[in-house]
């Protein structure tokens, strides 16, 4: 379980998050909703360690946890970015296996075996040797999810997973996220799409802009 206690985040003198509390139980899906500019993405960036917080505490499985300086490979927070940020110079397979090989020190064979399982699971079979530019939007997103999953994350975060896709792909994303839930993956989904959030979430969290 991930817990956020009294998290405060400011940019200059603009307060984005003030005494923000959140509990993300294992295996659940938390959807973070709210108007744009409210700080949803900032929250996600704090959880994934891309921004440091000004005060407050993170607890992961009841132990204090600093996302911004966390180097423990058992406590990876995976992120699926809004624009995916795949590595254009690497093939689909290499996008997935790069970090497991370099960071988790998996052998080439092990990392590729695991990658292949995930590729099959997320319906990317046959795309292994393509480059990201050769994939459709939905395929890019699934690759981004596979790449994050290959690091065996404790939690998987999504930033606006429906915004870069055609509307009819929304259901596919729902199915993927719910499918990963069946595999006990803990997931945090930032979205402005209320219907989507209601369809997937065990818990809805609203982030509201803070009046100065």
């Amino acid at each position, binding site marked *: 379980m991930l817990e956020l206690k009294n998290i405060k985040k400011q940019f200059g003198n603009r307060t984005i998050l003030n005494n923000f509390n959140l509990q993300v139980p294992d295996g659940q899906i938390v959807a973070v909703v709210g108007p744009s500019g409210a700080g949803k993405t900032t929250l996600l960036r704090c959880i994934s*360690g891309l921004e440091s917080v000004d005060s407050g505490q993170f607890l992961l499985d009841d132990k204090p946890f600093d996302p911004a300086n966390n180097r423990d490979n058992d406590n990876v927070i995976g992120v699926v970015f809004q624009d995916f*940020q*795949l590595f254009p*110079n*690497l093939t689909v397979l290499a996008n997935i296996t790069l970090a497991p090989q370099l960071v988790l020190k998996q052998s080439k064979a092990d990392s590729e075996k695991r990658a292949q399982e995930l590729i099959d699971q997320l319906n990317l079979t046959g795309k292994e040797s393509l480059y990201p530019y050769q994939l459709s939007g939905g395929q890019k997103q699934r690759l981004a999810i596979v790449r994050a999953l290959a690091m065996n994350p404790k939690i998987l975060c999504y930033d606006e997973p429906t915004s870069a896709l055609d509307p009819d792909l929304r259901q596919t994303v729902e199915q993927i996220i719910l499918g990963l839930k069946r595999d006990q993956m803990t997931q945090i989904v930032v979205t402005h799409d209320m219907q989507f959030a209601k369809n997937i979430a065990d818990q809805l969290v609203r982030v509201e802009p803070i009046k100065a």
Partner: protein
Amino acid sequence: MLHYASQILPSLLSGAWMTIKIFFWTLIASIPLGVVVSLGLTSNIPPLRWILKFYVWLMRGTPLLLQLIFVFYGLPIIGIIFQRYDAAIFAFILNYTAYFAEIFRGGFQAIPRGQYESARVLRLTRGQTLRRIVIPQVVKIVVPSIGNEVINLIKDSSLVYVIGLGDLLRAGNVATARDVTLLPLVLVGIIYLLMTAVATFILRRVEQHYRAWR
């Protein structure tokens, strides 16, 4: 005429060898140095940035000819003495590093922040991120501009005549003045063309290699 050409060819080729040596060593040193300087130019240590900006401004803002003269004839005045050949290599590396640094700076700035962030959440170190993700993308972006400088370098190398080095152009010049014929200079032109053709061919291949992805 063929007989005459075969007579002067050895001296032209030995001149061409000097040109190739200067070309080769300048590239070997100034491309990696250019990467390092470009990282310094975009670093968040202001004094380092200022010093490197000044260096680039100085190198790009003054003629290479002046820099060659300065290194070989000027520096001995303050006790730094270079052999002719070393002086030429030193001046060329200093000059070309500045140009390459500016090209690489543009390349690095074209890489979206998101690439660094996605590498970071995957736990890659800074070095791994640069080596495996960023630099390949930068290289793809800069190859055409680097190619321009490479071609320029072949021709710029002729400037070493000013400090008395025997390169290709000087060899042709000497023969023309001695034998009162334009043929040596025509041959010199042909040899330069051959060298730039080889460089162009290699650069094309590099560009093609990077065309596999976008």
